[in-house]
Each structure stands twice: as structure tokens, then as C-alpha cells.
């Protein structure tokens, strides 16, 4: 649901990224209308943590990832990374700051320049920042390529289209690693890949996270993948955060009706489990004119008049489990609805 509020933000020295009241709006052509891609969300990520952001297309999850990188800058709100507010930076300092956060995109093929050599592509960040001599740079690149499972020799001789989708994604990962970033934002990094290859990339990210001491933000629409890789998950719907909790709690006790819908929509690879009838109809409304009150109210099976007028804020229903809903499925003081089966 559409929730604002900051109850879930943590006061810890380990906070690496803290995003507050992030708003991103885009004009719709010259109509004077605007797309409310992200409407005032807040979250934080601790050092070494993996935050999963999950939601359907158009929920603003990718826009959030890009707004952190200031590509483009958000309409309002603050993005404090390692003590610096990125929204206040511009020019050289901005260029410098960006190198500490890197991003991996969904389409592995479009992320790599088709006309450049793979080794060149991975070398580019080092050559932009002139880190070390040419030989040192090449040594770093080859080491990292080997690390992600790409033969440096072949990389030196080939263009991206000579690699498979999964391998291209590994190359993108290698490029994001050479500058030694503190955080990597993965925007749907496995959605375009075959299931068998998805697993390889997810495992690789887990390994690299440990070895390089990375902090990850993992954005995806597939809750099963997100649950596997994340420590904490934020569920987004139509530009707002509905629920934030540890990934285990989210799976065991989904409190927001939308989270429940997402969970039950995942096909279970087991024919003996009866296919659950999805409890919502239709698709998210347009972010140009989002509904008043809770943004999920138009599809929510439990929506009441209150949901249509008053916007819920995030509140804690059990330790470290926050939900923005007037009628959560578990915990909370409001009438509890039975889980829809």
C-alpha cells in the first residue's frame, strides 16, 4: 500500500545508505501531467547488507535505483551515502561519488557497447580515472574477469555478441567491480536470463559480496529470487513502500495484502500443490493519476472506506517488521483478515 513514514529507518553507525522522502516525477510529454514514479519513500541499507526491492513493473523500483545514482536526480528527497548527501553534489564531486556505487542492468546485451572489445569495456572505468599504469590496469581487469568466470584471453579478442546472455551479465558485473565500489545496485539482473543461468548469476553475486565486502541493493519482480539473496526486503507498489521486513519474516508472515498476492503468484514447481487462485484482479492503476488513500485500495480484497481516503503510514507490527496498511493480515491492532487461499 501506499505508505509513507520512517518508522523503519535505523539509527546505527553501520548505515551506509539512507534515503529519505525520495520523490521522482517525470513530465508526460507536454501535457502538463506528470508520472508519479516514486512518491516519498524512505529506506536505509547497512554496511554488508543486501536489501531487496520487489514490486511489479511501474512500481518505481528501477527509478529508485537510478535516483540513488542521481541518474537522473530525484525531484526531491535526500540520498545520504556514507555521510554525503548525493543530491547536493554536482559536477566533479558527483562524478567521483558515483564510482562508489555501481549499477548492473537488466538487459545484459544492451548494457555492453556492441562495438567495443569486452576487455576494453571492463577496462574503461580504470582508464577514465587513470588508476595505475596501463599494465596494472590490464592485470586488474584480467583478475576480475577470471573472478567472474570469463576467460580474459577470450575477452581480449571478442565483442559482447559473441557471449551468451549470462556471460554478458558476468561481464557487466566485472565492469562494476573494477573501481572497487562499496555498493552495487542490481536492477533486475537475472530477469532476462534462463532459470538455470539465473542461479549461476545469483550465486556469483553472493560470492562476490563476501569477497569484496559489498553492500547490495537487489531490485527484481520475482520474490523467490529476491528472497533468496536478500537480508531485508522492501515491497513497493505504485511508487510507495508497502512493507519492510527481514526476508524470512516477509515470507512467513506477510502482513500486507499486496505482499501476500505477490507470494501466491509465484508458480510453485510442484504439480501436487494446487495452483492458488490469485486474489487480485486487474493491474496497477496508472502512476499518472494514482488513487487517493492507500494506493493499493483499487485492487485490495480487504479495502475499506478508510483505505480509500486515508493513507497508511509504515508502522512496526512485530520487531523489525513494518507495514503500511490499515488492515494488515497479521499483527497490528486493526481487524485481522483471514489469509486468502
Amino acid at each position: 500500500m501506499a505508505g509513507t513514514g520512517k518508522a523503519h529507518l535505523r539509527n546505527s553507525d553501520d548505515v551506509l545508505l539512507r534515503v529519505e522522502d525520495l520523490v521522482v516525477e517525470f513530465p508526460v510529454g507536454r501535457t502538463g501531467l506528470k508520472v508519479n514514479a516514486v512518491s516519498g519513500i524512505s529506506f536505509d541499507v547497512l554496511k554488508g547488507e543486501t536489501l531487496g526491492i520487489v514490486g511489479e513493473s511501474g512500481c518505481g523500483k528501477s527509478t529508485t535505483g537510478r535516483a540513488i545514482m542521481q541518474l537522473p536526480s530525484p525531484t526531491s528527497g535526500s540520498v545520504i551515502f556514507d555521510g554525503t548527501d548525493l543530491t547536493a553534489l554536482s559536477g566533479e564531486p558527483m562524478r567521483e561519488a558515483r564510482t562508489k556505487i555501481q549499477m548492473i542492468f537488466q538487459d545484459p546485451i544492451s548494457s555492453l557497447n556492441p562495438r567495443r572489445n569486452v576487455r576494453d569495456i571492463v577496462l574503461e572505468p580504470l582508464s577514465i580515472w587513470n588508476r595505475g599504469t596501463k599494465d596494472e590496469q590490464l592485470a586488474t581487469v584480467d583478475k576480475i574477469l577470471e573472478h567472474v568466470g570469463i576467460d580474459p584471453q577470450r575477452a581480449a579478442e571478442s565483442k559482447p555478441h559473441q557471449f551468451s546472455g549470462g556471460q554478458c551479465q558476468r561481464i557487466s558485473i566485472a565492469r562494476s567491480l573494477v573501481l572497487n565500489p562499496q555498493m552495487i545496485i542490481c536492477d533486475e539482473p537475472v530477469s532476462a536470463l534462463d532459470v538455470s543461468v539465473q542461479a549461476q548469476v545469483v550465486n556469483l553475486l553472493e560470492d562476490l559480496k563476501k569477497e569484496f565486502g559489498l553492500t547490495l541493493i537487489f531490485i527484481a519482480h520475482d520474490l523467490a529470487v529476491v528472497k533468496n539473496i536478500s537480508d531485508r526486503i522492501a515491497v513497493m507498489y505504485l511508487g510507495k513502500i508497502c512493507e519492510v521486513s527481514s526476508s524470512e519474516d516477509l515470507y512467513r508472515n506477510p502482513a500486507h495484502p499486496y505482499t501476500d498476492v505477490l507470494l501466491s503468484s509465484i508458480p510453485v514447481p510442484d504439480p501436487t500443490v494446487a495452483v492458488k487462485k490469485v486474489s487480485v484482479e486487474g493491474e496497477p492503476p496508472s502512476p499518472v493519476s494514482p488513487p487517493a488513500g492507500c494506493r493499493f485500495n483499487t485492487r485490495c480484497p480487504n479495502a475499506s472506506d478508510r483505505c480509500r481516503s486515508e493513507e497508511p503510514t509504515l508502522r512496526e507490527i512485530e520487531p523489525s517488521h513494518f507495514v503500511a496498511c490499515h488492515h494488515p493480515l497479521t499483527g497490528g491492532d486493526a481487524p485481522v483478515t483471514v489469509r486468502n487461499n
Partner: protein
Amino acid sequence: MSPPDVVRSEAEPLVETVEIKTHFKTPRGIARAVDGVSIQIRRGQSLGVVGESGSGKTVLSRSIMGLLPRNGVIRDGSVRYQGQEIGNRSSKEMRAIWGREMAMIFQDPMTSLNPVMKVGKQITESLRLHLGMSASEAMTIAERLFRDVRIPEPTRRLNQYPHELSGGMRQRVMIAIAMACGPNMLFADEPTTALDVTVQAQILELISEQKRDRNMSLLLVTHNLGVVAGYTDEIAVMYGGKVVEKAPTKTLFADTKMPYTEALLRSIPRLDQPSHSRLATIPGRPPDIVHPPKGCRFAPRCAYVRDLCLNEEPELQQAATPDHTYRCFYPVGSPEYLERKVELTRKGELVSTGDLN
């Protein structure tokens, strides 16, 4: 239980292929996209065709429907529809079958709809062409079809262009168009891959509901075993242009024989696994279909590979349960498989996936 004529029609397959081969001429040589596949689909039955990209699953469905270009394609084997050979028919002859007998929905509804034509027109066009209806008759039917596929406000939607609809709505329009002439056989090629999870579930539900209501047969092509589990009667797993395992859905999951199928299943992240559990992967990449490996095509990536697998190609084996076939010398559960499994587990190379075993 059922009237005798239904029994007869269910006994003989609606669509049958016998050892069909579809090879493409490429600059590198002959690509054996489909290399000797025999399947049968009975009336009202659904078959899931599962495989990684490049396994030939899409080419198989297009070969059956006769949608492939003539140039540069070598075809062999036989495709039968209601007992009649259709594999060698020209596009002109196939036109009588397309739409009325067989229909197809594709992965990307945006590219399969004409962007400059109102969706209502696109659906009535086919009704008027195939069934010779008048414009007003066709419009009434179109509205009913839109209602059938749960498109809200069908009258208004009929007057919209594809770009005015959401992805899920477009896929519903595609399904309505496919249903327009009441086909007996529906091909769905990754129909939900481009859609969101909640919409994916709705569309799969809709397809299987239409199949039930119309006693239609369905061939569902996908790369995700999870997707087909709940919606098919039978599954054929394809690898490198061949069907490597085929079984009724429940049997396939309960009594997997091919190590490849097992690996595919294990690589799906499951919600009931704890976070950060290591996912099982299939190493390497799909085989080169221009120069396929000598023995079993999966051998180079198989954890249970032995010398025989690398040198000889396994024939189709019959499993204990009827209708269950596979291509493997040392299937899951065989002594050789178990022996290797113990070794792998000891070396820690076999990633545990919770309580899968």
C-alpha cells in the same frame, strides 16, 4: 463415464509428430534446431515443452504449425493433424488450418498486434475472413470474446489501439484473437515471460480456463518448469533439439529420470528455502546445435557423466510408468547415479537445496 465418441477422440491424438527434424542452413553449417522429435497431444490435453534458450522449443511449436519460412530450412518427418499429414503443406493450404484449427499466442503481445489498427478491428477481421461473418455479427462476437477473456469495459476497449493497453491487457487481446475462430489446438510460446508475476498468474489461469471450457488442446512453451507444473498434463523437456524426457506432469516431478530435468528443477529458487541458500546451477552453456557433442548432448554439463555418455548417444528409454520416456544411460536412481552422487556429496560439489531429496 463418458460417451463413446469422446473416448474414441481422446484415444487418438489430435496432433502428432513423428521424428520431425527442422534444420536451418547457417553460414557456420547446418543448425539442428529440432532433431527428431515425436510428440502426441490428445484432444483437451495440454503439453508443456520446457527447455533453455536454444533448446529448439520455439522452433518445434512453429514447425508443427507450419510457420517457418521455406528458404534455408530443411524439414523431415511427419506432422499429423487429426490423422492427416500437414507437414508438407504450403502456407496457402495451411491458411485453412491457421485460426480455425490451430492458433498461437506469442511472448510479446506488442509486436504481434498491429500498432496502427484498433484491437476491435484486428479481431473482427479474422472473424470475417475465416467465418464469413458480417461486420455487426463479428462485433458482437468480438465483444463476447473480450468478456470471455475478462477484459473490463469490452465495448470501449474494442475501440482502442494496442499502445493504449497494458501488457497484460494486450496478452488478453491476443488470447481473444486466438480464440476467435474456436481453434482445437492452441500454441502458447512463452506467453507470460514479458509480464509481471501477478499478471502472469492471471494469464495462465485464463489460458487453462479457456482450454477447459472449449475442450481445446494446448502446447505451452516455456523455460520455467515452475510455470508448467500447475497447468499441463504432460511435459516434454527439450535439450539441444531433442526431447530428453517426457512424462505426465506428476510423474515427471515425482520420478525424474534425466539428470538434466533434475538440474533444471533444482535451479529454480524456491520460497521455502532459507535466504542465502546456495542455488544449484547447471554449469556451462547449452550445446552448439551446429556441431553437437558426440554422445549424449547433455554429457559435457552433466555431473553424473561417464565415458559411455561422451561416446554414445542414448536411445529413448521406457521408464517403469507408462508414457514416461527419457534419454539417459544412468538415470536418476540408477546404481551408477547413486554412486556418483555419494562421491559428489562427499566432495561438497553437490549443492544442497534443502529438503528436495
